[in-house]
């Protein structure tokens, strides 16, 4: 038995998918804050409105790394619109759940991905993701 995490979380934590930086990404999302102990960077490559590749680098706990990994897996191959439907809860569920104190990690992953889309849209159209702002880091949640 190990850790207060599900097997899925531990699998993505120990064998994270899509780790690394990307050469010439079409969009980059950077979220988190060293004070809180989590920093995520997510990179996407988009072709014909489809996310053909995604990568990440994360400084953070087990849940932060696993949610980054799972988020990149989930968005790869999806259209921007499909991918934007992805919520932090979906990421957590795909990992068979997270301990309550770790749910903020899934929020970070959602933000990182949406930040990357925002960046992509800004570059392409000059206008970012409409109505979107990353969640505030909230020390209480």
């Amino acid at each position, binding site marked *: 038995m*190990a*850790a207060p*995490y599900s097997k899925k979380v*531990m699998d993505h*934590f*120990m064998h*994270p998918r899509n*780790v*690394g*930086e990307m050469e010439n990404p079409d969009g980059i999302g*950077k979220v988190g804050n*060293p*004070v*809180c*102990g*989590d*920093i*995520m*960077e997510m990179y996407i490559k988009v072709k014909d409105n489809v996310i053909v590749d995604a990568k990440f*680098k*994360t*400084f*953070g*706990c*087990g*849940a*932060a*790394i696993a949610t980054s990994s799972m988020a990149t897996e989930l968005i790869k191959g999806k259209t921007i619109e499909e991918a934007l439907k992805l919520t932090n809860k979906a990421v957590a569920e795909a990992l068979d759940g997270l301990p309550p*104190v*770790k749910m*903020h990690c899934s929020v970070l992953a959602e933000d990182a991905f949406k930040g990357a889309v925002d960046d992509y849209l800004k570059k392409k159209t000059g206008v970012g993701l409409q109505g979107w702002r990353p969640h505030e*880091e909230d*020390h209480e949640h």
Partner: protein
Amino acid sequence: MKRIYLDYAATTPVHPDVAAEMQPYFSEKFGNPSSIHSFGQEAKAAVERAREQVAGLIAAQPEEIVFTSGGTEANNFAVQGIALANEDRGNHIIVSKIEHHAVLEPARFLENHGFKVTFLPVDNDGLVHPEDVQKAITDKTILVSIMHANNEIGTIEPIEEISKITKEKGVYFHTDAVQTVGSIPVDVNKLGVDLLSTSAHKLYGPKGVGALYIRKGTRLEPFIRGGGQERHRRASTENVAGIVGFGKACELAKNELQSRIDHLIPLRDKLIKGIKDNIQDVVLNGHPSIRLPKNVDITVKYVEGESMLLNLDIEGIAVSTGSACSSGALEPSHVLMATGISPELAHGSIRFTLGRLTTDEDIDRVLEVYPKIVEKLRKMSPLVKK
């Protein structure tokens, strides 16, 4: 795979001799020490023997020992007990910023109930400066509480020097010695303290039992109220088996103290050197030499603590981290922050604490496995740029 436990500051396995000593007190010698009949008197005698053993380890008188449910209760008892009993003399107490939560939380509680609390700073090595205590004392001060050694960074505080000041000023002095009793010599008279907290499970005794040393003549209100146990200082049926175990653990610690220290220091220093030699950008937290023989607390730059911990756990190595994630809070360790390091670095801390069963091979194994884990995690870290 042999599991390697390097979290002796969190808790220790009960020593086999301690477990054996406790055994008869569950189902055979099960009396309530308050009972006058033979079952009760048998239990009472066992509790009093344990009281002598605990007192013996810290050079106290048996009557000065009150058994509690652990270190936390002992700390609550000391802080609140002094505050309540001495309100007529003043409403100011002084604690350090790096105290355990079991001191900080009662202090904050008092702060919300009419007391003034000074939270003293520490230097980069985690040392409280006696001059700061001196300066903080006012004519309203009734209590100073500074821990003997810090549980996270292992720094040992200058208790003897501080007690010279508290004695001169006529202020009660409490020390949380949960991490030192059984680890390094503790003598209540040399330290010059009026109150001292200890906890059995940190020295190979059972969890759920501890003690507060209360120097004769100290004005203190009870904390847990009810029956007349512990000479009216702590109500509730005594945890007889636990107390017997605590007594035995103290007796063993007294006999083995020097050999335990001699065993740990070379292992500790080997681990520190090995980590520094094999991993770049690491910092030893706490004081380089005035530290507990068991403690190796380091910060590994660019990597978060829990992610290291989990990787080590997969390899069968159990360690701890002061990082936010482990406690469910988002703030980094208040102890590390008080030593002046950045939150980012504080999140990258990891604590190895060694003990009786730690071997040279265990350290070798850590040194083999750990650098690879750091390397792997640094590859994932956005703080490391190609």
